[in-house]
């Protein structure tokens, strides 16, 4: 990547950090700095707007309740390309921001192979090699990269249909739909994994922090890199502390409930 792009990325990050802030409490780790969080939600908002207005164009007879949100069919048609353009622009910056941690490696391939174990919660803790992003997150990221490129190319071709030809529009339309379906599948999984499937994840994108417990469970290699402690040892230690706490509480209760014998 060119150095001017890198410089811009660096400056934006610093600027975001100067304006915003991330408060890290004891027992927590900084996961997503201000710039990442702002970008994520800009991408998310423009994507959801594109998705909703896109649904209204994808099958209007089914999603006719969505067009009024955007001021009717013609307005939805007018706004959709602009929402999409904003989505690609914001995602481009997120791409620059996240390119380094999203580089694919062998561990990610291994992660994808054990997707079934992951989905069925067979291992309570992730394998030690899982870093800042796991294979699934990286796969979603790269799926968005490919989809965003397809969206942009086919979208522009359909936007300027008076210049492009009849069959260009007809083919672009199918490719645009396919990209949308891929994104939709990823989006459903992304929201689920970010909220209900792994409690403690959503705050990473709101507060910017996660608990250390969350970190060693879901991203052990990252935990080790940041804290310098072995995730499994931290887990055992926490387990001992938990047992100690229970025992102390039991003792205290027993002491309180027994009448004083002198």
């Amino acid at each position: 990547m060119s150095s001017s792009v890198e410089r811009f990325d660096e400056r934006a990050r610093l600027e975001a950090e100067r304006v915003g802030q991330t408060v890290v409490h004891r027992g927590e780790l900084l996961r997503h700095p201000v710039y990442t969080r702002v970008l994520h939600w800009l991408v998310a908002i423009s994507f959801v707007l594109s998705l909703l207005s896109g649904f209204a164009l994808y099958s209007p007879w089914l999603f006719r309740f969505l067009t009024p949100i955007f001021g009717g069919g013609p307005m939805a048609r007018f706004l959709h390309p602009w929402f999409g353009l904003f989505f690609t622009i914001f995602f481009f910056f997120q791409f620059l921001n996240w390119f380094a941690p999203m580089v694919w490696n062998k561990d990610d391939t291994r992660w994808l192979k054990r997707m079934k174990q992951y989905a069925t919660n067979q291992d309570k803790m992730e394998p030690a090699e899982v870093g800042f992003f796991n294979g699934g997150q990286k796969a979603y990221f790269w799926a968005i990269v490919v989809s965003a490129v397809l969206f942009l190319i086919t979208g522009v071709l359909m936007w300027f249909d008076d210049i492009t030809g009849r069959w260009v529009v007809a083919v672009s339309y199918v490719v645009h739909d396919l990209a949308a379906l891929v994104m939709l599948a990823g989006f459903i999984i992304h929201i689920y994994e970010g909220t209900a499937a792994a409690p403690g994840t959503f705050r990473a994108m709101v507060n910017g922090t996660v608990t250390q417990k969350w970190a060693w469970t879901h991203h052990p290699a990252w935990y080790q890199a940041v804290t310098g402690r072995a995730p499994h040892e931290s887990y055992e230690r926490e387990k001992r502390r938990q047992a100690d706490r229970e025992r102390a509480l039991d003792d205290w209760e027993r002491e309180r409930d027994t009448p004083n014998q002198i």
Partner: protein
Amino acid sequence: MANPQTFQIQEISAHPGPVPGQGTQRAVQVCKYIDVTTCIGCKACEVACVEWNDHPFRETTFNDTYQTMPTTEWNYWNLIKFAEDEHDGNLMWLMRKDQCMHCEDPGCLRACPADGAIIKYENGIVDFNQNNCIGCGYCISGCPFDIPKFNPNTKKVYKCTLCSDRVGQGLEPACIKACPTGCLHFGTKDDMVQIAGLRAKQLQEHSGFAAAGVYDPPSIGGTHVIYVLHDINNPERYGLPKTPVIPPSYTYWKWLAKPTGLLLAGLGVLAVFFHRVAVGPRLAQPEDPPVVERQPDPIEAKRKEQP
């Protein structure tokens, strides 16, 4: 667009559920028949179209031809196309009145995603209702004849209506009324096909056009505007496609693959929901409060109680 009370609607673009009033009245299939061999290129039909539809005069481009403008426009629905055609050493000056073909299987209607923007009447006329048009331009790419045209000011698409407002009142289209040579005819589809067939036969037998024939392409179920051409084997000489087709994106993809994709997405949402219910969340380890041994199944226990 015609008064909805005048015609029975047969098909509505992107419309769920039944079509109101379908098949409740007897409706004859109408058809315009154009005999290109008797066209003299006088453009009376062009003027009549502009007059009847109250279209403004528009600027045009002159490119060394008698043709009024390169293609039909959003406010110029009727255009005689002039072609200087050299074939086997003979020069022919071909003239063809170009307008909407009112296909039996309309590509514009197949492509249209807006409910009720394109309507096909029982009599075969394909009409646009600009009130419902969202201006996406898909109809333009769905049309094999390059007929619908976008108006950048109103962001709506327009095309020839086959004078549905006149036909609804029992009148013939304006272009037919204006034609001085009798090259244009209007009537029921059966009648027009018969007259066109006779004319083609006449051309074959008496005028030396052995390849003369009727242009009524079956690939789109026939059209409600038919031509008699002196060379039916090469309609391209007149600027007509030999086999007009609707892109599969507006047929198989739109009515099969798209709903299937949506259905899969819906199942995906359900799958995610039931994953949470059945498999449960991945909690940070060690869980707090700690996990205890497996509890007995209460229903199984009750069942065992009963002999």
